[in-house]
Structure formats: C-alpha cells, structure tokens
C-alpha cells in the first residue's frame, strides 16, 4: 500500500522544549504564577476533606449558635447566616467550579471539533450550513444564551452545565474550522488526496496535530470564562441550590447581610476572582509562549 510521506512537511506550532522552555518560563513570571495557582486550586479541590476544618459545613449542617460570626481563630473566614464555616465551604467550592468548567469544555470540544473539521476540511455547502448555524449561536453573548436556557430548564447545577455547554461549542467550531481550512488548502493535501489517502487519515495525521496548540491555549483561557459564567448564573439563582457550597450562590446568599457581615460575600468572591485570574494568566501566558510573534521579548 502506498503510504503518504510522513507529516514533516507541515510544521505544527510546538511546545518549546528544554532550554527554550526554561527561557520562556523565565520571561513570563505571570504564566508561572498563574499555572502554580491553578495547580494549587486543583489540589485544594481534591484534598478538600483533609483541608476543610468543618467538612460537614459544606453540606447541610447548621449551627444556630454560631450564626454570622466574624473571622476568628476558629473560623478563619467567619461563619455564614446559618452558622456554617465559610472557609470549609469555600474549600469545597473549589470542587464545583473547575468540575463544571471541565465538563462544559469537554462537551464543547466533543461537539465543536468534529463540526469544525467537517466545515473546514470539506468546505462547500457543508461549510456554509455549519457556519451559518454557528453564526446564529455566536450572535448571542454566551452569558445571555446560557441564561435563557438555564431559565427555562429546571434549576440545577446540571442544567446550568448543559446550558453553558450549548453556548460554548460554537467557538471551538470556528477555531477548528480555521485551522482545518488552512491545512486543507495546501497543495500538499491535494497530493495526499490524489494518492487515495482516506480523509480520516489526512485529518488525524495533519489537521489535528496543527490544531492541538491553539486548542490548548483556547481551553485554558476558557476555563476562567466558564467559571465566571457559572458563578454569575448561580448568583442569579439559576444554578446550584442550597446547601451546595457553590461560590456564586454563596455571594448571592450573603448579599442581604453584606453591609454588616462583609465576610460572607467577600471570601467566596475572592475565590472566584483568584481562580479565574489564575487560569486566565495561564492561558494568556501559554499563548505568548507558543506564538513567538506575540512574545514579550522585542
């Protein structure tokens, strides 16, 4: 069987190795900071039962005698309106937000990537149809569409996840379509086709490797975005319900007491901020690292 020549002719953007990687990291302290923080948050999420001083408070425990206590040695972040330890709830909250983000992005990729490849590689009317549908989805700001969907579905964290996933996949379709179209347009691919190489092989050998790096960058940037969207929807009451220790929900619940008991709102909010910030720094730094044109060095 005639095999197509190995895919060295089409250079894919690569992760710098060894020396270059070290230099890249040194020039990009924000990337390192973001990456380490992100890892830390994931560790906290996994080790929640070990780290939280009052694990029961992340569930439906209530302590009527400890209602709305300010931060102290016993409760570092104070207690909320039913006496639960805010620190423990914040720690357990780290399990929810990243999980939602992962699920959303997996769904978005599973739907978006094949559609994008189909549109970019095959072109023609397939491309037109897919892109028009994508355009309609993209005509709605993500939060809005997710909001509309979450409002009509029964309120739960699952509905929220599905709603966000539905709004997120078009971005990946668009991204992958661009990559697929640029690869498909190269003369090299024509010769592959002429040799009778099946489409799926061309796609896995050439289109996908080229798409990996922009995909990695996009995903790490999107984690922050999904977390913000999810917490916003939970804040509005469209996501997790009490007693789930969702950060957005905690901010919403603490609103009424905010002027006198500031800690109920402040700490969950900081958690959202730090998490989104860390992943955004990571994504932004990765983008700089992998695209030499945009690097910090002149």
């Amino acid at each position, binding site marked *: 069987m005639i095999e197509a020549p190995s895919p060295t002719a089409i250079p894919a953007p690569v992760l710098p190795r060894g020396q270059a990687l070290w230099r890249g990291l040194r020039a990009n302290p924000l990337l390192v900071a973001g990456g380490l923080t992100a890892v830390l948050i994931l560790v906290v999420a996994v080790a929640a039962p070990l780290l939280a001083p009052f694990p029961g408070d992340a569930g439906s425990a209530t302590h009527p005698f400890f209602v709305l206590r300010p931060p102290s040695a016993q409760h570092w972040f104070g207690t909320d309106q039913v006496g639960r330890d805010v620190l423990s709830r914040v720690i357990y909250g780290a399990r929810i937000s990243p999980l939602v983000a992962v699920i959303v992005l997996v769904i978005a990729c599973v739907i978006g990537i094949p559609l994008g490849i189909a549109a970019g590689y095959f072109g023609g009317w397939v491309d037109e149809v897919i892109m028009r549908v994508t355009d*309609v989805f993209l005509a709605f700001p993500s939060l809005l569409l997710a909001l509309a969907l979450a409002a009509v579905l029964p309120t739960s964290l699952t509905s929220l996840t599905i709603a966000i996933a539905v709004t997120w996949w078009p971005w990946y379709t668009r991204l992958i379509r661009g990559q697929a179209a640029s690869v498909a347009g190269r003369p090299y691919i024509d010769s592959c086709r002429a040799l009778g190489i099946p489409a799926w092989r061309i796609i896995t050998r050439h289109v996908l490797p080229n798409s990996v790096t922009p995909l990695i960058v996009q995903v790490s940037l999107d984690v922050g975005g999904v977390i913000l969207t999810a917490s*916003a929807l939970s*804040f509005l009451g469209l996501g997790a319900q009490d007693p789930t220790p969702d950060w957005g929900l905690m901010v919403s619940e603490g609103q009424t007491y905010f002027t006198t008991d500031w800690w109920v709102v402040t700490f969950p909010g900081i958690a959202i901020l730090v998490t*989104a910030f860390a992943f955004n720094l990571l994504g932004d730094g990765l983008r700089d690292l992998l695209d030499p044109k945009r690097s910090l060095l002149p």
Partner: protein
Amino acid sequence: MTGYVARRVALAALVVAGVIIATFVIARVVPGDPAATWAGPHASAAQVAAARRFLGLDRPPLVQLLAYFGGILSGNWGLSIHTHQPVLSDIGTAAPASLELVTAAMIIALAVAVPLGLVSARWPGGLVDQAIRAVSILGVSMPIFWMALILQLVFSQRLHVLPAAGEYSPGLLFSHPLAQRTGFSLIDATISGNWPMLGSILVHLVLPAVVVAAYPAGLIARMVRAQVLDTVSETHIQMIRALGFSERTVYSRFAMKLAWNPVAAAVALVFGYSLVNTFLVEAIFDWPGLGSYTAASIATLDTPAILGVTLFIALVYVAANLAVDIIQSVLDPRIRLR
C-alpha cells in the same frame, strides 16, 4: 462602498432570522405544558384545551413558527407574566437606562485602556508592561456582581463619597422632575436643561459604570498592546521614523490608527457582552434598566420576558457588529477596496 454595505446588511438579516428561530426553539424547550401553566393548577381538561387554543399551541409547529415570526416583526413579543404588559413595551422602558450604562462604561474603558495599551506596547517586556498585563487580566477575571457589592460597600457605605443606589437622588423627583422625551435620562436631562438632575444621574452612574467597564478595559488594553506591537515592526512605521517623527507620535498617531480597526470590532463584541453583564449589577445598584427587569423576570420565571430580552440583546449585538463592519470599512480602506 454601497455594495459592501448591502452584503453586510443581507448577512445580518439572515442571522437575525436565525436568532428569532432560535428563541422560538428555546421557548418550546420549556418542560411541562405551557397551556397547563397558563390555565392554572386547578384547571379542568376543557380549560387547558381552551388555553392551548388561545396560545396557538394546537397548530402545527411550522405554523406556530410563522405566527411567532410574524408576531416578532410586527411588534408582538408576548405578554410579561409578572408585569402583565407587552414585553416589547417593558423592554422599551427599561432598555435606555442599560444602554446609557453600557455606553458610559465603554467610554471609561476606552479612556483607561487605550493609553495603558500604548504604554505597554512602547516598552514591551518591562515591569510596567507586566504590571499592566496583570491588571488587564485581572479586569477580565473579575466576578462583576462581587465587584459591584465590594465597591458599593467601600465607596458608599464606608467612605460616603458616592451614592449607593438608584438612578438619581429621590428628592429631585419632586424638586426637578425629569421631562420624559426620548426615554434616555441623560439626554432628556440635557435637552431640558435640568442640570441638577443631570449631575445627580452622572454621580449615580459612576459606580455601576466602573464595574461594567472592568471587563472591556482589560480586553481593550490587551488588544491595543497586541495590535500596536504587530504594527510597529512593519516597514511603514520605519518610514515614519525615517521622516523624523517622534516615538510618541509614531505610536499614538500612526501605529494606533491601524489598531483602531480591530479595537472597534472588539468594542462591538464587548458591548453585547457588557449589556448582559448589566444583569448582574443593576439589581445591586437599583439601576432601572434591562438588568433589573431580567433579574425580576428570572425570579418569577417569566419566560416571555426572559426570551424577549434575549431576542432584544441578540438584535442589538447583530446591529452592533454590522455597525462595526461598516465603520471598519471606513477606517481601513483596504476592506472596501478589496
């Protein structure tokens, strides 16, 4: 030039049609039977059937879609369950305040972000660049609702420098009532010369606008930096330098002119996003816009209202993108000369 505009308008119309269909589909996704909900929990089968006929749900789906389409285009966007008013008129009352808020936020964002982006691009890699970069990313990572609460607490409750809520001081309602002309409070106050009211509105606008401006500011700063850096490595910039222009002029006048194009596109994109962000802050600041309306609609599960707002904002979004396409072709002649 007109050919280009015509093409963009046609494309936009196509997307609008798709958007209307999409909201129709979403409305039908509601689990449960809308007719039963409308008729009430104690309705008899006959009453539910009557409700179904009334709501037009007994007709085939395609007919329903066409009726929906016709309704939208003729201004019938349904009735809000909690205000009992036509959704479109509710939106008409609430939208201007939100549009003012977002416009003010955009102005603040541009005023802050463009200079920061230019400074970043002028000395890339330096400490200032890193700091601006961190702040920009912080801006786009901010949970808006939380920032609103914090700023309200700090500046209003504790420092007492800015008002906590409302569109204007309640007292002015009696001493200097606002003449409703266009529905846009700022414009109305200006054209009727109602200066105390104008001042009050502006002061009340500060906190919510700053909160909404955080995300666009971060985005625009990064964008300006990237665009200007791309541009200054090009030959025409060397030519400008070779003619004797100062670095400052090179960046702010020549490099920036090329950057405005993608920045304008970003502003349109982020306008729609920010309009939705108002949902999160308006209730907190008691700003009488779409956000407050939507927050109330969510609380009462007022589906027609929610979908009406969704449709409205999507239309604004499409219109904004269209406007930007046209503006871009003016700013960058290469587009229309292609």
